[in-house]
């Protein structure tokens, strides 16, 4: 066939120059291209979570509540509490409660210079990698900013389990689909608190709507200085930690 659709070098450069801003917009500033509205006062809620680490007493009531609310299979966790212990020589030990009764045993150690509990759960990232890697569209972010799994659609490939930088996902041995924290979506959409937030006796776990400036969470985040886990992953987590120590990040 005749190659009459050739373009000149000049034309090529012109088209590249015209396309560059669009490509830049999409790749370098994805936020501009596909940004999420986070306007205070907007009607659509944007649910988020906060943990006041200094209040956690490591009772694991959250883990028990999550299990009974969501039927999490034995040996798997949607949320858990880690115990950090820093020894005199700088060594950091991290352990979790016994998996049967969720009770931290007193394991005395003399040279512990610092110890604290850190509750962990799905960070419900604004740019959730687990949703991005799902090949069938079973993992997604709801309009309220909650990262969920469509159990009917999930094929159990486990890509999301590998992708999550926080290790919050697992393959449910019963349904053979991805299991994770739903932020108790069935409860929060009825105006109830997530089970872990309800069960926490010290109020270490907090939940609320970022779009509502008067919500408990918005006020808490306004008054306290917070940080997120693994910010370098670029996932923009919506689980905010106050009084988080250096060893955890």
């Amino acid at each position, binding site marked *: 066939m005749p190659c009459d659709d050739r373009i000149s070098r000049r034309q090529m450069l012109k088209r590249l120059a015209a396309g560059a801003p669009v490509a830049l917009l999409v790749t370098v500033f994805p936020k501009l291209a596909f940004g999420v509205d986070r306007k205070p006062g907007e009607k659509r809620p944007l649910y988020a979570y906060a943990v006041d680490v200094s209040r956690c*007493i490591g009772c694991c009531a959250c883990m028990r509540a999550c299990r*009974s*609310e969501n039927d999490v299979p034995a040996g798997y966790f949607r949320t858990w509490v880690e115990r950090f212990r820093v020894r005199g020589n700088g060594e950091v030990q991290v352990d979790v409660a016994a998996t049967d009764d969720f009770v931290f045993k007193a394991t005395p150690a003399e040279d512990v210079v610092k110890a*604290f509990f850190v509750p962990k759960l799905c960070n419900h990232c604004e740019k959730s990698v687990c949703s991005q890697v799902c090949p069938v569209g079973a993992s997604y972010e709801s309009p309220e900013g909650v990262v969920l799994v469509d159990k009917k*659609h999930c094929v159990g490939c486990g890509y999301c389990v590998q992708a999550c930088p926080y290790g919050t996902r697992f393959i449910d041995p019963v349904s053979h689909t991805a299991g994770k924290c*739903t932020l108790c979506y*069935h*409860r929060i959409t009825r105006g109830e608190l997530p089970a872990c937030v309800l*069960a926490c*006796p010290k109020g270490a776990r907090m939940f609320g709507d970022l779009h509502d400036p008067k919500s408990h969470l918005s006020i808490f985040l306004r008054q306290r200085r917070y940080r997120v886990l693994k910010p370098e992953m670029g996932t923009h987590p919506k689980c905010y930690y106050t009084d988080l120590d250096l060893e955890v990040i």
Partner: protein
Amino acid sequence: MTIMTASKEVGAVRPDYRHAYPLLIIVALGVTAALIVRHSLVPKSFGQYGFYRAAALDDEKARLSRHAGRAACAECHEDVVAVHARDAHGSVECETCHGVGGKHIKDNDSPMARAGAKDDCLVCHRLLDARPGSFPQVDWQKHYQFVGVKDNATACVRCHSGHEPLYLDQDLRKARLHPLIQECTSCHIGRTDQTLKKPDGHPQIFQCDYCHPDLAKSFAKVAHAGLRCTTCHLFVKENAFSGRIVRNTNPRFCLLCHRKADFKSDAGPPTIEWPEHIKDVSNDAPDPKRPCVTCHQAQIHDLYRKDAQHAM
């Protein structure tokens, strides 16, 4: 270039695409079949909000809540919930100790867990190095030895009620601020400001004997000397420089240690029967609200009085 000039020389020849028709038909059929299959396989609501099935949200919403919350408990157990909300366990939800309540609410015959064993309490109150220091924790073996409990299987609730563990007279959250703290704001205007210069003699607000040396001295001589001031004068620390103080005068608070019980030996603190004790020592009718310190002040410390004793 050579081809184009050649075709011009021969004259305009219409390109012949007939050989492509069968291919086009096959491709068209394939695309149609693919579209039909896609239509039947992809759920209807897919793509409504994003690259996922919007109906999955409804599936998730349709699940039933199992935790009911204390408001639901209060519909039947109003008295317990009211007492509970006032005492030290006020921030603890009913279901944290008693398990989920959804089933019990629907069907009264399905009972809640009792949560009265020692291990149930130790879930939160076992002494652990990682627990915040302000949170009450107990080395239960030492504690049992101290109060003279004979049987290690004795439940905590034999002395401490789960609903009102400290028998507080008033709501913990409404307790008065420590009087000194009310003056903090004259320098600290709404902040614990690090830039403020610390004046000489700045009060140590969490160290009782700094401001109350006379009381601390007299307290050191009595039988209670081994206890901390905050064991009885509960000090609830609210933040770095603020706290509420609760002087608990409910007789049942004293009886936490001093009540006679079959599981206690003589090794512990002296015990009494109550309210029989009131009848034995007084002609007055037993008043459950009359504090023990009305008579037993001397065994605690010299009463803090602004007039006579304190000036000495």
